[in-house]
Protein backbone atom coordinates (compact mmCIF):
# COMPACT_ATOMS: atom_id res chain seq x y z
CA UNK A 1 0.00 0.00 0.00
CA UNK A 2 1.30 3.42 -0.92
CA UNK A 3 0.26 6.73 0.54
CA UNK A 4 0.17 9.86 -1.58
CA UNK A 5 -0.72 13.47 -0.73
CA UNK A 6 -2.26 16.39 -2.60
CA UNK A 7 -1.47 20.08 -2.28
CA UNK A 8 -5.09 20.46 -1.08
CA UNK A 9 -4.14 18.41 1.99
CA UNK A 10 -5.87 15.16 1.15
CA UNK A 11 -4.13 11.79 1.61
CA UNK A 12 -4.84 8.69 -0.45
CA UNK A 13 -3.80 5.14 0.39
CA UNK A 14 -3.61 3.07 -2.77
CA UNK A 15 -3.79 -0.72 -2.77
CA UNK A 16 -3.94 -2.01 -6.32
CA UNK A 17 -6.97 -0.44 -7.98
CA UNK A 18 -8.69 0.58 -4.72
CA UNK A 19 -7.89 3.49 -2.46
CA UNK A 20 -8.92 5.24 0.77
CA UNK A 21 -9.07 9.04 1.01
CA UNK A 22 -8.96 11.40 3.96
CA UNK A 23 -7.60 14.77 5.00
CA UNK A 24 -4.22 15.24 6.58
CA UNK A 25 -3.39 16.01 10.17
CA UNK A 26 -2.23 19.45 9.05
CA UNK A 27 -5.64 20.02 7.42
CA UNK A 28 -7.67 19.05 10.48
CA UNK A 29 -5.47 21.23 12.64
CA UNK A 30 -6.07 24.19 10.34
CA UNK A 31 -9.83 23.54 10.34
CA UNK A 32 -10.16 23.22 14.08
CA UNK A 33 -13.05 21.44 15.79
CA UNK A 34 -14.92 19.46 13.15
CA UNK A 35 -18.67 19.25 13.70
CA UNK A 36 -20.00 17.74 10.48
CA UNK A 37 -18.73 15.68 7.56
CA UNK A 38 -20.61 14.90 4.35
CA UNK A 39 -19.11 11.95 2.51
CA UNK A 40 -20.06 10.73 -0.98
CA UNK A 41 -22.47 7.83 -1.33
CA UNK A 42 -21.36 4.45 -2.58
CA UNK A 43 -21.59 4.41 -6.38
CA UNK A 44 -20.92 8.12 -6.80
CA UNK A 45 -18.29 8.98 -9.35
CA UNK A 46 -15.70 11.57 -8.50
CA UNK A 47 -13.19 13.24 -10.75
CA UNK A 48 -9.64 14.25 -9.94
CA UNK A 49 -9.63 17.70 -8.37
CA UNK A 50 -13.43 17.78 -8.15
CA UNK A 51 -15.49 18.27 -4.99
CA UNK A 52 -16.02 14.92 -3.30
CA UNK A 53 -16.88 15.64 0.32
CA UNK A 54 -17.52 18.53 2.69
CA UNK A 55 -16.02 19.04 6.11
CA UNK A 56 -17.45 21.62 8.47
CA UNK A 57 -15.65 23.08 11.44
CA UNK A 58 -17.26 25.37 14.01
CA UNK A 59 -16.39 28.33 11.85
CA UNK A 60 -16.68 27.25 8.22
CA UNK A 61 -17.45 24.63 5.58
CA UNK A 62 -14.63 23.42 3.33
CA UNK A 63 -14.65 21.21 0.28
CA UNK A 64 -12.60 18.05 0.12
CA UNK A 65 -11.42 17.20 -3.38
CA UNK A 66 -10.91 13.82 -4.95
CA UNK A 67 -7.15 13.17 -5.37
CA UNK A 68 -7.94 10.95 -8.37
CA UNK A 69 -10.96 10.01 -10.46
CA UNK A 70 -12.96 6.92 -9.63
CA UNK A 71 -16.11 5.33 -8.29
CA UNK A 72 -16.87 5.55 -4.58
CA UNK A 73 -17.29 2.16 -2.94
CA UNK A 74 -17.90 3.34 0.63
CA UNK A 75 -18.28 6.55 2.64
CA UNK A 76 -17.14 6.45 6.26
CA UNK A 77 -20.46 6.08 8.11
CA UNK A 78 -18.75 6.52 11.49
CA UNK A 79 -18.20 10.21 10.73
CA UNK A 80 -21.96 10.88 10.82
CA UNK A 81 -22.10 10.06 14.52
CA UNK A 82 -18.63 11.23 15.45
CA UNK A 83 -17.21 13.86 13.10
CA UNK A 84 -14.50 14.58 15.66
CA UNK A 85 -12.76 11.38 14.50
CA UNK A 86 -11.31 13.60 11.79
CA UNK A 87 -9.62 15.64 14.53
CA UNK A 88 -8.55 12.74 16.72
CA UNK A 89 -7.41 10.29 14.02
CA UNK A 90 -7.35 12.10 10.66
CA UNK A 91 -5.09 9.64 8.88
CA UNK A 92 -6.77 6.55 10.34
CA UNK A 93 -10.31 6.15 11.69
CA UNK A 94 -11.18 9.59 10.33
CA UNK A 95 -10.96 8.49 6.67
CA UNK A 96 -13.62 9.94 4.34
CA UNK A 97 -14.28 7.49 1.52
CA UNK A 98 -12.96 4.52 -0.44
CA UNK A 99 -12.96 4.34 -4.21
CA UNK A 100 -11.99 2.30 -7.23
CA UNK A 101 -9.44 4.13 -9.31
CA UNK A 102 -10.44 5.03 -12.86
CA UNK A 103 -6.90 5.72 -14.00
CA UNK A 104 -3.89 4.83 -11.83
CA UNK A 105 -1.86 7.15 -14.04
CA UNK A 106 -3.50 10.06 -12.19
CA UNK A 107 -1.37 9.19 -9.17
CA UNK A 108 1.63 10.61 -11.00
CA UNK A 109 2.29 14.06 -9.72
CA UNK A 110 0.90 13.46 -6.22
CA UNK A 111 3.38 13.88 -3.39
CA UNK A 112 4.85 11.16 -1.23
CA UNK A 113 5.08 11.67 2.53
CA UNK A 114 8.49 13.37 2.41
CA UNK A 115 7.32 15.63 -0.39
CA UNK A 116 4.18 16.59 1.51
CA UNK A 117 6.14 17.29 4.70
CA UNK A 118 8.38 19.64 2.76
CA UNK A 119 5.32 21.24 1.16
CA UNK A 120 3.68 21.89 4.54
CA UNK A 121 6.93 23.19 6.02
CA UNK A 122 6.99 25.79 3.26
CA UNK A 123 3.47 27.08 4.02
Amino acid at each position, binding site marked *: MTRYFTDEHEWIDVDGSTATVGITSYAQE*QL*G*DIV*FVEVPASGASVSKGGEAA*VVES*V*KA*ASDVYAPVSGTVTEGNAALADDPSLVNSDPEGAGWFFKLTLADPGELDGLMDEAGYKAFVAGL
Partner: protein
Amino acid sequence: MSDTNNLQEVLTLPLDGWHRAKGARMVPFAGYAMPIQYEGIMAEHLWTRESAGLFDVSHMGQLILSGDGADAALEAVTPSDLIGLKQGKQRYSMLLNEDGWIEDDMMVARAPMGLYLVVNGSEKAKDIAFLRAHLPDHLTLTHLEDRALLALQGPKAVDALARVVPGVDRLFFMEADSFIWANAGDPQPLWISRSGYTGEDGFEISVPADHAVALADVLAAQPEVKPIGLGARDSLRLEAGLPLYGHDLNDTTNPAMADLGFAVAKRRREAADFPGAASILIELNQGPPLTRLGFIVEGRQPVRENVELFDGDRSVGFVTSGGHSPCLGQPIGMALLEENWAKTGLTLEAEVRGKRVPVKTVPMPFVPHRYHRAISRQAKPDGSDIAPHQTKGAK
Protein backbone atom coordinates in the same frame (compact mmCIF):
# COMPACT_ATOMS: atom_id res chain seq x y z
CA MET B 1 -9.37 20.99 0.96
CA SER B 2 -10.20 24.51 0.02
CA ASP B 3 -8.24 27.45 1.23
CA THR B 4 -10.11 30.63 2.09
CA ASN B 5 -7.44 33.07 3.18
CA ASN B 6 -7.62 36.54 1.72
CA LEU B 7 -4.46 38.49 1.44
CA GLN B 8 -4.90 42.20 1.79
CA GLU B 9 -3.32 45.04 3.65
CA VAL B 10 -3.55 44.01 7.27
CA LEU B 11 -2.82 46.31 10.20
CA THR B 12 -1.63 45.17 13.60
CA LEU B 13 -3.15 45.96 17.00
CA PRO B 14 -1.32 46.59 20.28
CA LEU B 15 -1.65 42.96 21.42
CA ASP B 16 -0.44 41.42 18.14
CA GLY B 17 2.77 39.98 19.54
CA TRP B 18 1.02 38.95 22.74
CA HIS B 19 -1.46 36.80 20.82
CA ARG B 20 1.28 35.19 18.75
CA ALA B 21 3.28 34.39 21.88
CA LYS B 22 0.16 32.72 23.31
CA GLY B 23 -0.04 30.47 20.24
CA ALA B 24 -2.95 32.20 18.55
CA ARG B 25 -3.76 31.59 14.92
CA MET B 26 -4.01 35.06 13.41
CA VAL B 27 -6.43 35.92 10.60
CA PRO B 28 -7.36 39.17 8.87
CA PHE B 29 -10.53 40.63 10.35
CA ALA B 30 -11.91 44.15 9.93
CA GLY B 31 -8.58 45.13 8.39
CA TYR B 32 -6.48 43.87 11.31
CA ALA B 33 -4.57 40.71 12.12
CA MET B 34 -6.62 39.17 14.92
CA PRO B 35 -6.60 35.88 16.86
CA ILE B 36 -9.26 33.49 15.57
CA GLN B 37 -8.36 30.83 18.16
CA TYR B 38 -5.72 29.64 20.60
CA GLU B 39 -6.35 26.07 21.81
CA GLY B 40 -9.56 25.62 19.82
CA ILE B 41 -12.94 27.29 19.41
CA MET B 42 -14.93 24.64 21.23
CA ALA B 43 -12.70 24.54 24.31
CA GLU B 44 -12.46 28.34 24.41
CA HIS B 45 -16.22 28.70 24.10
CA LEU B 46 -16.95 26.30 26.94
CA TRP B 47 -14.25 27.84 29.14
CA THR B 48 -15.86 31.26 28.77
CA ARG B 49 -19.26 29.87 29.77
CA GLU B 50 -17.86 28.18 32.87
CA SER B 51 -15.03 30.46 33.96
CA ALA B 52 -13.71 33.61 32.26
CA GLY B 53 -12.39 34.43 28.81
CA LEU B 54 -10.17 37.35 27.81
CA PHE B 55 -10.96 38.82 24.38
CA ASP B 56 -8.99 41.44 22.50
CA VAL B 57 -11.52 43.68 20.77
CA SER B 58 -9.15 46.54 20.07
CA HIS B 59 -10.29 46.59 16.43
CA MET B 60 -13.50 48.23 17.55
CA GLY B 61 -13.87 51.97 17.32
CA GLN B 62 -13.79 53.85 20.61
CA LEU B 63 -15.13 57.37 20.16
CA ILE B 64 -15.85 60.33 22.42
CA LEU B 65 -18.54 62.79 21.41
CA SER B 66 -18.33 65.97 23.44
CA GLY B 67 -19.77 69.47 23.43
CA ASP B 68 -23.03 71.11 24.42
CA GLY B 69 -26.02 69.06 23.43
CA ALA B 70 -24.03 66.04 22.27
CA ASP B 71 -26.75 63.73 23.57
CA ALA B 72 -29.59 65.48 21.73
CA ALA B 73 -27.52 65.67 18.56
CA LEU B 74 -26.68 61.97 18.65
CA GLU B 75 -30.33 61.16 19.28
CA ALA B 76 -31.10 62.57 15.84
CA VAL B 77 -29.34 59.59 14.22
CA THR B 78 -30.47 56.91 16.70
CA PRO B 79 -33.76 55.59 18.12
CA SER B 80 -32.38 55.88 21.69
CA ASP B 81 -33.09 58.08 24.68
CA LEU B 82 -29.62 59.53 25.22
CA ILE B 83 -30.74 62.73 26.96
CA GLY B 84 -32.06 60.44 29.67
CA LEU B 85 -28.81 58.47 29.84
CA LYS B 86 -27.37 59.10 33.28
CA GLN B 87 -23.71 59.46 34.15
CA GLY B 88 -22.13 56.03 34.38
CA LYS B 89 -24.88 54.26 32.45
CA GLN B 90 -24.51 52.54 29.11
CA ARG B 91 -27.07 51.73 26.47
CA TYR B 92 -27.24 49.59 23.33
CA SER B 93 -27.99 51.82 20.36
CA MET B 94 -27.62 52.01 16.62
CA LEU B 95 -26.89 54.56 13.96
CA LEU B 96 -29.82 54.97 11.58
CA ASN B 97 -29.63 56.61 8.20
CA GLU B 98 -32.33 58.99 6.99
CA ASP B 99 -34.67 56.18 6.05
CA GLY B 100 -34.21 54.27 9.30
CA TRP B 101 -31.87 51.57 7.99
CA ILE B 102 -29.13 50.46 10.35
CA GLU B 103 -25.71 51.92 9.53
CA ASP B 104 -24.16 50.23 12.57
CA ASP B 105 -25.00 49.13 16.08
CA MET B 106 -23.06 50.45 19.04
CA MET B 107 -22.77 51.02 22.76
CA VAL B 108 -23.18 54.51 24.17
CA ALA B 109 -22.15 55.38 27.74
CA ARG B 110 -22.20 58.71 29.49
CA ALA B 111 -18.64 59.34 30.65
CA PRO B 112 -17.26 62.43 32.39
CA MET B 113 -15.59 63.62 29.18
CA GLY B 114 -18.62 63.11 26.95
CA LEU B 115 -20.55 60.29 25.35
CA TYR B 116 -18.33 57.22 24.95
CA LEU B 117 -19.25 55.18 21.88
CA VAL B 118 -18.03 51.75 20.87
CA VAL B 119 -18.73 50.89 17.23
CA ASN B 120 -17.88 47.92 15.05
CA GLY B 121 -14.32 47.65 13.82
CA SER B 122 -15.41 46.88 10.29
CA GLU B 123 -17.71 49.92 10.22
CA LYS B 124 -15.75 52.49 12.19
CA ALA B 125 -14.34 54.52 9.30
CA LYS B 126 -17.81 54.76 7.77
CA ASP B 127 -19.35 55.57 11.15
CA ILE B 128 -16.92 58.39 11.84
CA ALA B 129 -17.66 59.91 8.42
CA PHE B 130 -21.39 59.45 9.01
CA LEU B 131 -21.23 61.13 12.42
CA ARG B 132 -19.13 64.03 11.12
CA ALA B 133 -21.61 64.55 8.30
CA HIS B 134 -24.69 64.41 10.51
CA LEU B 135 -23.63 66.11 13.74
CA PRO B 136 -23.38 69.87 14.29
CA ASP B 137 -19.93 71.38 13.82
CA HIS B 138 -19.63 72.65 17.39
CA LEU B 139 -19.43 69.06 18.69
CA THR B 140 -16.10 67.26 18.91
CA LEU B 141 -15.76 63.65 17.83
CA THR B 142 -12.54 62.05 19.04
CA HIS B 143 -11.39 58.64 17.85
CA LEU B 144 -9.48 57.08 20.75
CA GLU B 145 -6.90 55.36 18.58
CA ASP B 146 -4.44 55.34 21.47
CA ARG B 147 -6.58 52.97 23.50
CA ALA B 148 -6.98 49.22 23.31
CA LEU B 149 -10.17 47.40 24.31
CA LEU B 150 -10.27 44.12 26.21
CA ALA B 151 -13.32 42.12 27.20
CA LEU B 152 -13.33 39.76 30.16
CA GLN B 153 -16.40 37.55 29.97
CA GLY B 154 -17.83 34.70 31.97
CA PRO B 155 -19.25 33.87 35.40
CA LYS B 156 -15.82 34.21 37.05
CA ALA B 157 -14.83 37.42 35.24
CA VAL B 158 -15.83 39.50 38.23
CA ASP B 159 -13.59 37.51 40.60
CA ALA B 160 -10.60 37.83 38.31
CA LEU B 161 -11.03 41.50 37.47
CA ALA B 162 -11.83 42.62 41.03
CA ARG B 163 -8.48 41.17 42.11
CA VAL B 164 -6.68 43.35 39.55
CA VAL B 165 -8.94 46.41 39.70
CA PRO B 166 -10.60 46.56 43.11
CA GLY B 167 -14.10 47.99 43.10
CA VAL B 168 -15.30 46.83 39.69
CA ASP B 169 -17.69 44.44 41.38
CA ARG B 170 -19.89 47.38 42.35
CA LEU B 171 -20.91 47.89 38.72
CA PHE B 172 -24.15 46.34 37.54
CA PHE B 173 -24.92 45.27 33.99
CA MET B 174 -24.72 48.25 31.61
CA GLU B 175 -22.99 50.53 34.08
CA ALA B 176 -19.56 52.01 33.44
CA ASP B 177 -17.00 54.07 35.30
CA SER B 178 -13.37 55.16 35.47
CA PHE B 179 -11.02 53.08 37.58
CA ILE B 180 -7.35 53.37 38.38
CA TRP B 181 -5.35 50.22 37.78
CA ALA B 182 -2.28 50.12 40.03
CA ASN B 183 -0.14 48.46 37.32
CA ALA B 184 2.78 47.74 39.65
CA GLY B 185 3.53 51.34 40.52
CA ASP B 186 2.65 52.89 37.15
CA PRO B 187 -1.05 53.66 37.70
CA GLN B 188 -3.20 53.82 34.57
CA PRO B 189 -6.74 55.04 34.01
CA LEU B 190 -9.22 52.44 32.77
CA TRP B 191 -12.77 52.95 31.54
CA ILE B 192 -14.68 49.83 32.45
CA SER B 193 -18.25 48.84 31.62
CA ARG B 194 -20.08 45.78 32.85
CA SER B 195 -21.23 44.49 29.49
CA GLY B 196 -20.17 42.19 26.71
CA TYR B 197 -21.09 40.14 23.70
CA THR B 198 -21.32 36.61 25.07
CA GLY B 199 -24.53 36.60 27.12
CA GLU B 200 -22.41 36.14 30.24
CA ASP B 201 -21.62 38.53 33.04
CA GLY B 202 -18.43 40.38 32.23
CA PHE B 203 -16.60 43.59 31.55
CA GLU B 204 -15.18 45.64 28.74
CA ILE B 205 -12.03 47.50 29.58
CA SER B 206 -10.61 50.47 27.71
CA VAL B 207 -6.88 50.76 28.42
CA PRO B 208 -4.13 53.03 27.09
CA ALA B 209 -2.61 51.10 24.17
CA ASP B 210 0.90 51.33 25.62
CA HIS B 211 -0.25 49.38 28.66
CA ALA B 212 -2.50 46.85 26.96
CA VAL B 213 0.11 44.10 27.04
CA ALA B 214 0.71 44.58 30.77
CA LEU B 215 -3.02 44.46 31.47
CA ALA B 216 -3.54 41.40 29.26
CA ASP B 217 -0.64 39.71 31.07
CA VAL B 218 -2.03 40.34 34.54
CA LEU B 219 -5.55 39.31 33.53
CA ALA B 220 -4.40 36.16 31.74
CA ALA B 221 -2.36 35.25 34.84
CA GLN B 222 -5.52 34.98 36.93
CA PRO B 223 -6.44 31.32 37.42
CA GLU B 224 -9.98 31.81 36.06
CA VAL B 225 -8.83 33.38 32.80
CA LYS B 226 -7.77 32.08 29.40
CA PRO B 227 -7.38 34.07 26.18
CA ILE B 228 -10.25 33.52 23.76
CA GLY B 229 -10.27 34.13 20.01
CA LEU B 230 -12.77 35.62 17.61
CA GLY B 231 -14.07 32.18 16.63
CA ALA B 232 -15.51 31.54 20.09
CA ARG B 233 -16.61 35.16 20.29
CA ASP B 234 -18.86 34.49 17.31
CA SER B 235 -20.26 31.19 18.60
CA LEU B 236 -20.85 32.73 22.04
CA ARG B 237 -22.76 35.71 20.67
CA LEU B 238 -24.78 33.42 18.40
CA GLU B 239 -25.86 31.28 21.37
CA ALA B 240 -26.74 34.49 23.20
CA GLY B 241 -28.97 35.52 20.28
CA LEU B 242 -27.01 38.72 19.73
CA PRO B 243 -26.94 40.08 16.18
CA LEU B 244 -23.71 40.81 14.34
CA TYR B 245 -23.51 43.81 12.04
CA GLY B 246 -22.71 42.90 8.45
CA HIS B 247 -24.53 39.59 8.90
CA ASP B 248 -27.76 39.82 10.93
CA LEU B 249 -27.90 43.60 10.61
CA ASN B 250 -27.05 45.86 7.71
CA ASP B 251 -28.32 48.90 5.88
CA THR B 252 -31.28 46.96 4.51
CA THR B 253 -32.56 46.06 7.99
CA ASN B 254 -34.27 48.34 10.48
CA PRO B 255 -34.80 47.96 14.25
CA ALA B 256 -38.22 46.31 13.78
CA MET B 257 -36.91 43.71 11.33
CA ALA B 258 -33.91 43.05 13.54
CA ASP B 259 -36.20 42.41 16.53
CA LEU B 260 -34.41 45.19 18.38
CA GLY B 261 -37.55 46.99 19.49
CA PHE B 262 -36.12 47.22 23.01
CA ALA B 263 -33.58 49.70 21.65
CA VAL B 264 -36.30 52.06 20.39
CA ALA B 265 -36.92 54.24 23.42
CA LYS B 266 -40.43 54.93 24.68
CA ARG B 267 -39.92 58.68 24.47
CA ARG B 268 -38.72 58.43 20.88
CA ARG B 269 -41.70 56.25 19.93
CA GLU B 270 -44.11 58.75 21.41
CA ALA B 271 -42.40 61.64 19.67
CA ALA B 272 -41.90 59.62 16.48
CA ASP B 273 -38.80 61.71 15.96
CA PHE B 274 -36.13 59.16 14.93
CA PRO B 275 -35.05 58.42 11.38
CA GLY B 276 -37.55 56.21 9.61
CA ALA B 277 -40.00 56.52 12.51
CA ALA B 278 -43.09 56.58 10.31
CA SER B 279 -42.49 53.14 8.83
CA ILE B 280 -40.58 51.60 11.75
CA LEU B 281 -43.37 52.41 14.24
CA ILE B 282 -45.93 50.74 11.99
CA GLU B 283 -43.67 47.71 11.63
CA LEU B 284 -43.08 47.54 15.39
CA ASN B 285 -46.85 47.44 15.89
CA GLN B 286 -47.97 45.32 12.98
CA GLY B 287 -44.91 43.25 12.18
CA PRO B 288 -42.23 43.96 9.59
CA PRO B 289 -42.06 42.22 6.20
CA LEU B 290 -39.02 40.25 7.42
CA THR B 291 -38.15 39.50 11.05
CA ARG B 292 -34.98 38.15 12.67
CA LEU B 293 -35.66 34.83 14.38
CA GLY B 294 -33.68 31.97 15.86
CA PHE B 295 -33.70 28.39 14.63
CA ILE B 296 -32.26 25.06 15.66
CA VAL B 297 -31.30 22.37 13.18
CA GLU B 298 -32.37 18.76 13.44
CA GLY B 299 -29.27 16.68 12.98
CA ARG B 300 -25.67 17.80 12.85
CA GLN B 301 -25.35 19.67 9.59
CA PRO B 302 -24.57 23.36 10.14
CA VAL B 303 -26.89 25.74 8.30
CA ARG B 304 -24.90 28.86 7.58
CA GLU B 305 -25.30 32.43 6.40
CA ASN B 306 -27.22 32.98 3.13
CA VAL B 307 -28.86 29.54 3.11
CA GLU B 308 -32.48 29.79 1.97
CA LEU B 309 -35.34 28.53 4.16
CA PHE B 310 -38.44 26.90 2.70
CA ASP B 311 -41.94 25.94 3.72
CA GLY B 312 -42.59 23.27 1.12
CA ASP B 313 -41.78 24.88 -2.21
CA ARG B 314 -42.19 28.40 -0.87
CA SER B 315 -38.99 30.29 -0.06
CA VAL B 316 -39.79 32.10 3.21
CA GLY B 317 -36.48 33.61 4.30
CA PHE B 318 -32.74 33.23 4.58
CA VAL B 319 -30.10 32.59 7.20
CA THR B 320 -28.09 35.57 8.45
CA SER B 321 -25.81 33.69 10.89
CA GLY B 322 -25.47 30.02 11.58
CA GLY B 323 -23.11 27.52 13.09
CA HIS B 324 -22.52 24.88 15.68
CA SER B 325 -23.57 25.57 19.27
CA PRO B 326 -20.92 24.10 21.57
CA CYS B 327 -23.27 24.30 24.58
CA LEU B 328 -26.28 22.70 22.89
CA GLY B 329 -24.19 20.31 20.80
CA GLN B 330 -26.22 21.04 17.70
CA PRO B 331 -26.35 23.62 14.92
CA ILE B 332 -28.23 26.87 15.53
CA GLY B 333 -28.72 30.08 13.62
CA MET B 334 -30.60 33.28 12.99
CA ALA B 335 -32.68 34.02 9.92
CA LEU B 336 -34.78 36.77 8.42
CA LEU B 337 -38.23 35.29 7.84
CA GLU B 338 -41.24 36.64 5.99
CA GLU B 339 -44.16 37.93 8.00
CA ASN B 340 -46.36 34.81 7.90
CA TRP B 341 -43.46 32.62 9.01
CA ALA B 342 -42.04 34.95 11.65
CA LYS B 343 -43.09 32.90 14.64
CA THR B 344 -41.47 30.32 16.85
CA GLY B 345 -42.38 26.64 16.79
CA LEU B 346 -42.49 26.31 13.00
CA THR B 347 -40.73 23.52 11.17
CA LEU B 348 -39.09 24.72 7.96
CA GLU B 349 -36.45 23.33 5.65
CA ALA B 350 -33.05 24.76 4.87
CA GLU B 351 -31.57 23.99 1.48
CA VAL B 352 -27.89 23.17 1.93
CA ARG B 353 -25.91 22.03 -1.09
CA GLY B 354 -29.09 20.84 -2.79
CA LYS B 355 -30.38 18.89 0.20
CA ARG B 356 -33.22 19.79 2.53
CA VAL B 357 -32.41 19.97 6.24
CA PRO B 358 -35.24 20.40 8.78
CA VAL B 359 -35.01 23.42 11.08
CA LYS B 360 -37.32 24.68 13.80
CA THR B 361 -37.86 28.30 14.72
CA VAL B 362 -37.23 28.93 18.41
CA PRO B 363 -37.04 31.82 20.88
CA MET B 364 -33.67 33.40 21.50
CA PRO B 365 -31.36 33.43 23.35
CA PHE B 366 -30.42 29.79 22.77
CA VAL B 367 -28.44 29.83 26.01
CA PRO B 368 -29.88 32.02 28.81
CA HIS B 369 -28.24 35.35 29.51
CA ARG B 370 -26.56 35.59 32.89
CA TYR B 371 -26.08 39.32 33.26
CA HIS B 372 -25.48 40.92 36.63
CA ARG B 373 -28.56 43.12 36.62
CA ALA B 374 -29.28 45.79 39.19
CA ILE B 375 -32.90 44.66 39.48
CA SER B 376 -33.52 41.02 38.93
CA ARG B 377 -35.73 40.70 35.92
CA GLN B 378 -37.05 37.60 34.32
CA ALA B 379 -36.68 36.97 30.66
CA LYS B 380 -40.01 37.29 28.94
CA PRO B 381 -41.54 34.02 27.79
CA ASP B 382 -41.22 35.03 24.16
CA GLY B 383 -37.50 35.48 24.58
CA SER B 384 -37.72 39.16 23.73
CA ASP B 385 -35.37 40.01 26.55
CA ILE B 386 -32.55 40.32 24.05
CA ALA B 387 -30.51 42.56 26.11
CA PRO B 388 -28.04 45.19 25.18
CA HIS B 389 -24.74 44.01 23.98
CA GLN B 390 -21.36 45.33 23.32
CA THR B 391 -20.51 45.03 19.75
CA LYS B 392 -19.02 42.93 17.25
CA GLY B 393 -17.35 39.66 16.82
CA ALA B 394 -15.85 37.56 14.19
CA LYS B 395 -17.00 35.17 11.67
